[in-house]
């Protein structure tokens, strides 16, 4: 234990000290340059470590991935667009795309509705009750997706009809006289996919609630009073006065959850490993790369994922900038 702590301290010291040493040396190097060149070159010397890190850890792998997406399974030979055409033609990958699309459509919207509902209702509680309720609803976010998967396995668990049911849902079903259902294997109507989405919504609702609740509290009370005097009912006040005023927070939550959805891996991997027609793009990528050892397919999948992400990220950054300007 003592050695571990010493190691950790050493690592921190070496890291910070190393960074200081690098910047010190770069600065000294800059000072060696004559007159005006010192001023011109120095900013780049200071930027260099960060740029180098981004280049090595982000840009280079991205470029390499794009290149490998045009190569064969072992990345030894270029095979043109056939990774893409094979994937898009396979029915398994089509299911994955449809599932991912459903996740994109349902989860961010569902999370916002849930978060908005909780935030609005919690806002009407007494301060102490509000705090308690919010803490409990926020808790899942701290648990993490893998633990959440473990918890929800117990909710959806199914035992043979002869045994006692461990799963909450089946406990209820058999309690009212029904037969136990193996929830996660029912792909008709995409039921099992929806059940997995519920988990992510459960996880993200707390995050949505915290942001939206703060936004709702920031809406000036007198605009609500003015609306009340203007003859608006509670529904009209909510949709025509409150929601438009928290629009930017809604967009922020929507996009953050959307990005989380596109990256969703753990929940599906833990619960079904993408079987029973529940596969999503990130799990498919993982299985192609590590189970099937097909680097070509895996690279093609993430490139397609990246192509979907770019417009969303661009929109978010624009939105963020517009907000900064209007402030």
């Amino acid at each position, binding site marked *: 234990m003592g050695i571990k702590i010493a190691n950790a301290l050493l690592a921190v010291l070496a890291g910070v000290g190393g960074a200081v040493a690098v910047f010190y040396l770069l600065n000294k190097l800059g000072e060696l340059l004559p007159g005006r060149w010192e001023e011109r070159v120095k900013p780049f010397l200071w930027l260099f470590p960060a740029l180098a890190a981004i280049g090595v850890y982000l840009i280079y792998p991205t470029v390499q991935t794009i290149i490998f997406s045009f190569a064969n399974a072992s990345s030894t030979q270029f095979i043109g667009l056939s990774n893409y055409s094979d994937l898009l033609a396979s029915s398994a990958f089509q299911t994955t795309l449809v599932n991912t699309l459903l996740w994109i459509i349902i989860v961010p919207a569902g999370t916002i509705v849930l978060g908005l509902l909780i935030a609005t209702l919690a806002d009407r509680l007494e301060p102490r009750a509000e705090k308690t309720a919010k803490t409990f609803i926020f808790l899942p976010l701290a648990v993490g997706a893998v633990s959440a998967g473990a918890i929800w396995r117990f909710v959806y668990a199914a035992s043979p009809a002869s045994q006692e049911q461990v799963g909450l849902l089946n406990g209820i079903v058999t309690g009212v006289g029904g037969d136990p259902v193996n929830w996660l294997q029912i792909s008709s109507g995409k039921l099992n996919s929806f059940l997995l989405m519920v988990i992510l919504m459960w996880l993200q609702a707390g995050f949505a609630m915290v942001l939206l609740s703060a936004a709702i509290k920031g809406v*000036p009370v*007198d*605009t609500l*009073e*003015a*609306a*009340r*005097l*203007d*003859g*608006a*009912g509670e529904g*009209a006040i909510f949709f*025509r*006065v409150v929601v*438009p*005023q928290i*629009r930017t927070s809604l967009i922020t939550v929507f996009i953050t959850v959307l990005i989380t959805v596109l990256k969703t891996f753990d929940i599906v991997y833990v619960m079904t490993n993408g079987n029973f027609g529940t596969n999503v793009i990130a799990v498919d990528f993982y299985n192609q790369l590590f189970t099937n050892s097909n680097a070509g397919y895996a690279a093609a999948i993430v490139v397609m994922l990246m192509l979907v992400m770019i417009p969303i990220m661009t929109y978010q950054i624009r939105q963020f900038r517009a907000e900064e300007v*209007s402030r």
Partner: protein
Amino acid sequence: MATITYDQATLQYPGAERPSVNALDLEIADGEFLVLVGPSGSGKSTALRMIAGLEAVTEGHIRIGDKDVTSLPPKERDIAMVFQNYALYPHMSVADNMGFSLKISGMKKDEIRKRVEEAARILDLDAYLDRKPKALSGGQRQRVAMGRAIVRSPQAFLMDEPLSNLDAKLRVQTRTEIAALQRRLGTTTVYVTHDQVEAMTMGDRVALLKDGYLQQVDTPRNLYDRPDNVFVAGFIGSPAMNLVEVRLDSSGALLGQHHIPLPTTTLSALNGASTATIGFRPEAVELVGEGAGFPFEVAVVEELGSDAYAYGSLQQSGASVASASERLLTIRVGGRKPPMKGEVVHLQVSPDDVHVFSTETGRRVDTGDRQRPSGSTRV
């Protein structure tokens, strides 16, 4: 348009020690411009919000016209309110802000447009109808808030310190505009302010509140000339009335060593008390030559151009009466030749201009002169 009546209206917040508004009885005539004025915490805004239905009345009743609205929600009261911070909807254009209530009531689009444009013309907002509130100046926002009230042609306007966010010059200008607009529309208006100048210049009648109690309600002129108690006397008028506690003798009051004769009716009304509070306004003072009146040592002179105000204390046998803690007296002197700092001038106050209040109760002791009909409204 309608009358508004407070009938023993009381509001006590849960957990508060005393009511914020205490058994308020007040009748506001149809078409009247009534100003609720008082220091902060006097309950004036609360009283206004009680009419709006934004605060629940704990006891008593509020009536608009013949209708008891005590337990009706705001939207069923048909009143419009102008808020201190304007409370404009930031996501709506000026036109949508003004037309929101009409839209909620289900009015046709072209009819809304017509009424909004008409209101915009009155308020000189035509050019800004498509702008968002953010792109408007403070004065324009204030006018949009007014517009939002007038498009509805409501039973009454309620205004909660609508000018307090404007700069001094604009405030004076807008004050006149609001008063003129109200006269033109003839809509019953209740206006809250902490500024007694606004109250005096705008109201047909002014109701002065303190600690939730109505102190006096009367025309501005009567409030000024015949304040009911020491608080009203000190609140109305700028600079404030000089209020001094004095000893009484058989024929009048002693201000330092100087004798002010008081009418026998007043003295008998004081019921043999040994002290009283007398008040006189800064402008009730006349400068006289040496040998007459009271010597007054000037400490500070404020020149306002047309007038000047001199602050100082009465002199007694060559020494100043005022101790450090005592408030300086204020007198108005001619703006052309004000006395110098440190100079001693001689004052005279006409007995007619002296207000006498009981030290014990703070209430006015009637001097029996200068009677005016009180409680009159604009006709």
